[in-house]
């Protein structure tokens, strides 16, 4: 059948038409080989836009369609569906990206128009050689992997598990709980963080559909939507989880101490320890870097006192292999290290502390029993809280960390609650109290006579210039509203530090083949309309791994990710790309390079004929085999040499 091609050029409002001369492009497309009709339209993705295509298919007998608009990751499925509904095989469609690859990347209208022409010409030449393909469906494995056991991971796991489907919750530290477990009270309602979190942690532990895998990390992920294979390394705990009843005697008797991770160095823990008293699972781990048995070969006190014989010094790391249909990443954030901002003196000046250190200090179950104290053990008489430390700064993180304003105001309130006489100063640049009940909380803190000073402090120093400054931390700043350069002697300064991506975010992104935005957080598929999906189908994100957010937003996002997963599970199957590799048996020499590189195990070697074969059900059409085949025996449907060469020729008009 002779190709009859329709070309549709989208204005995308002014997104494309503001730069590209759409009318000129349409006139150009009209004259390309095989093109029956070319049209421009304001919004091709709208219902009338799609109707335009479907109508032309019927009226003009089109059998191939090119849409020049945005990225195919955005709307290729939309237009393929439109073609299919009108009776054209969805693979007889091709998209030219004249927005992200063209109008958005230049202000030069002339050159943008030329590039749009080249992209359309390439698409038209390519679609000329397209072949109809059958859509393929794969079934969805109803098990889900949730990575990260903070509040986001906990919430998502519980929602999915409550529907009766199996969830594997993997956490890299010895207990779930995440950063939320380290917080004292939560803004703006001041619920005790532990009071609202620990019941959920217990639910996770006892839930029949949740398998909790702590002290473990995901090492390898293969497969695709509905059918992922995951390898998890479970680190040796040196305590048998099946035997231990969490009595805690080993921790009491252990004579060796180390800085507590949970108390961010403010307190100590033993060499055999649980992260915190309410840890889930309530099974300790031995820290082999501080355990004297591991260092010097003697001690084993924990082993002696354990009546259940749960201590196992011979335990090794083990690898767990799982098969799941979808993955939710909820790997959270890490706190910005303010030592890199020299002028704030963190690490050099005593009593300059981070927000997380203050959370631990003010927590009644924390290392000071909730007492706000200076290094010398005395209560401070005055405290400054600096907002935006590491946030909204091109040298560190350009984004706003979204929680620091509210957390800082919560600190002011907690200080007043514990020590009503203390003067509290909030150093802010802009107050962001946008959430429900947040502005009211701001007003409450103002009423409590917290002094708000608009100005980002220039430095904190201990070099006194007056007798009042002696032995104090002096904050030097501009009070921008008063228009004065001031120095304020204080006893303690809290740095409200930025939330930043986890140090291993890049490794995890690579493991799952998802993208990071410029700031390092995981990138969602669409910032507004697809906020928990990623560019890898079947992989979802929730919580602070996607960007800084507070607890309400984190919980909402976790629920959204769970809903996405549940929708997939209840649908049961999913359509996948039809492109597959085809091996020409005549040319294949049976070298099996293709079999070696195939990530999906889709290629097998047929001993009898000494050739390789592709299992079409397993093949994902990634093209690796095509690239490695030394005898050029493999082609990829929808990416044939003919199609690609035609596309390149079209580009070189």
């Amino acid at each position, binding site marked *: 059948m002779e190709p009859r091609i329709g070309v549709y050029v989208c204005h995308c409002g002014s997104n494309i038409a503001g730069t590209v001369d759409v009318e000129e492009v349409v006139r150009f497309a009209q004259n390309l080989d095989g093109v029956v009709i070319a049209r421009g339209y304001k919004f091709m993705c709208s219902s009338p836009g799609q109707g335009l295509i479907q109508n032309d298919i019927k009226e003009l007998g089109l059998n191939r369609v090119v849409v020049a608009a945005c990225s195919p990751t955005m709307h290729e499925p939309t237009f393929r569906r439109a073609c299919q509904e009108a009776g054209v095989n969805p693979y007889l469609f091709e998209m030219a990206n004249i927005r992200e690859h063209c109008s958005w990347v230049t202000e030069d209208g002339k050159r943008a128009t030329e590039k749009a022409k080249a992209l359309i010409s390439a698409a038209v030449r390519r679609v000329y050689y397209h072949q109809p393909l059958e859509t393929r469906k794969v079934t969805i494995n109803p098990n889900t992997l949730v990575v990260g056991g903070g509040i986001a991971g906990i919430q998502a796991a519980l929602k999915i598990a409550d529907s009766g489907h199996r969830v594997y919750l993997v956490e890299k530290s010895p207990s779930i709980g995440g950063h939320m477990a380290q917080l004292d009270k939560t803004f703006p309602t001041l619920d005790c963080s532990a009071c609202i979190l620990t019941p959920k942690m217990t639910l996770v532990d006892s839930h029949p559909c949740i398998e909790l895998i702590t002290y473990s990390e995901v090492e390898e992920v293969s497969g695709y939507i509905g059918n992922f294979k995951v390898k998890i390394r479970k680190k040796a705990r040196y305590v048998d989880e099946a035997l231990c009843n969490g009595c805690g005697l080993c921790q009491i008797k252990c004579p060796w101490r180390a800085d507590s991770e949970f108390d961010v160095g403010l307190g100590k823990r033993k060499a055999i320890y649980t992260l915190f008293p309410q840890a889930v699972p309530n099974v300790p781990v031995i820290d082999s870097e501080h355990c004297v048995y591991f260092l010097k070969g003697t001690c084993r006190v924990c082993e002696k006192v354990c009546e259940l014989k749960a201590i196992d010094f011979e335990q090794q790391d083990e690898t767990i292999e799982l098969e799941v249909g979808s993955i939710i990443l909820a790997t959270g954030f890490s706190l910005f290290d303010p030592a890199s901002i*020299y*002028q704030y003196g963190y690490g050099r000046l005593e009593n300059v502390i981070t927000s997380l250190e203050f959370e631990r200090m003010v927590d009644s179950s924390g290392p000071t029993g909730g007492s706000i104290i200076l290094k010398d053990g005395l209560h401070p008489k005055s405290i400054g809280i600096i907002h935006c430390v590491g946030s909204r700064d091109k040298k560190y993180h350009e984004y706003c960390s979204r929680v620091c304003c509210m957390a800082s105001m919560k600190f002011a309130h907690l200080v007043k609650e514990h020590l009503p006489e203390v003067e509290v100063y909030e150093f802010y640049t802009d107050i962001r109290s946008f959430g429900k009940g947040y502005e009211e909380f701001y007003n409450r803190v103002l009423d409590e006579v917290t002094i708000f000073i608009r100005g980002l402090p220039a430095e904190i*120093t201990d*070099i006194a*210039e007056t007798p009042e400054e002696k032995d104090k931390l002096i904050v030097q700043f501009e009070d921008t509203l008063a228009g004065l350069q001031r120095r304020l002697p204080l006893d303690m300064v809290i740095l409200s530090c930025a939330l930043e991506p986890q140090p291993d975010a890049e490794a995890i992104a690579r493991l799952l083949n998802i993208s990071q935005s410029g700031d390092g957080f995981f990138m969602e598929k669409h910032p507004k309309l697809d906020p928990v999906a990623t560019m890898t189908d079947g992989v979802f994100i929730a919580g602070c791994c996607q960007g800084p957010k507070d607890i309400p937003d984190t919980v909402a996002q976790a629920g959204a990710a769970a809903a996405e997963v549940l929708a997939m599970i209840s649908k049961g199957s999913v359509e996948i790309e039809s492109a597959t590799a085809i091996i020409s048996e005549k040319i294949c020499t049976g070298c099996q390079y293709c079999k070696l590189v195939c990530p999906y195990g889709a290629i097998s070697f047929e001993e009898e004929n000494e050739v390789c074969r592709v299992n079409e059900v397993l093949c994902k059409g990634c093209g690796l085999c095509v690239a490695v085949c030394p005898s050029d025996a493999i082609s990829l449907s929808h990416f044939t040499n003919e199609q690609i060469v035609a596309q390149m020729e079209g580009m070189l008009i």
Partner: protein
Amino acid sequence: MKRYAYYPGCSTESTAIGLGLSIKAVAGPLGIELEELEDWTCCGSVQYGSLDELEAILVATRNLALAEKKGLDLVTPCSSCFITLTSAGLQLRKNHLLMSQVNEALAVANLEYHGNVPVRHLTEVLASDVTTEVIASNVKYRLNGLKVAPYYGCQLVRPDYGFDDPDFPRSLDRLVESLGAEAIPFPLKSRCCGGTLVIPEEDMALGLIRKLLDNALENGAQCITTPCPLCQINLDAYQSRVNNKFKTHYNLPVLFITQLIGLALGIDAVSLGLNTNIVSPGRVLDDILGAGQEASHGA
């Protein structure tokens, strides 16, 4: 011998003659050859740029063009010259129209500039090219026990042209330590001395100088060392003005780093221009050098 094009800067012939002399005295023993630009002219400093931003670039570039002919890195000991020449080079590289206009003007003096001269501060050359190991191995009299406040000033490290930390630099500390002396902790080591405003706004500048002297003394300094000619004159020549104004009794010698190096290399005080320092370093150094010489002879 490592060779460099050398831009001394106006002050090394006058207010900072001790710097000029001591550089000439230590260069040979440290294995560097400084080829002074023939006919060089003032870089213009901040002053020229504050009256005419663009013309200031032209006058600075005249010196860059002289250096480009030599095909060597351009080294200057003056922090103000360092940032003026560096900034001129950077701006020309960004602004092609300005580059062509500057070249048109340079042409009347048969000069041209293509943007290929790395401008380096002498402190960086000492720390990175000569290296503290080589300096230490040339030391004849270790300055053991001498407590030195390493004073960087502003424009050696800011704006950040990348050779040392702009907040808390270390290169001068390392140079001091390579001589056997102790680089004391000096929190204000890169804070401002008042710069050229010491003439029109003396009171303000004296306040800044006092803070520096106070911070150095409080941390146990017996002397201050700096590579910057302007910092040196402010701390040295205006020390008596500080004492007058604040009724203080500072008597803290301020040596150029090259003077301190020269002493450790065993070069005589006159060759190093030490007799041009206003607060006499004599007493402090006699003690140290006397002890150092004895120790060396004993060994």
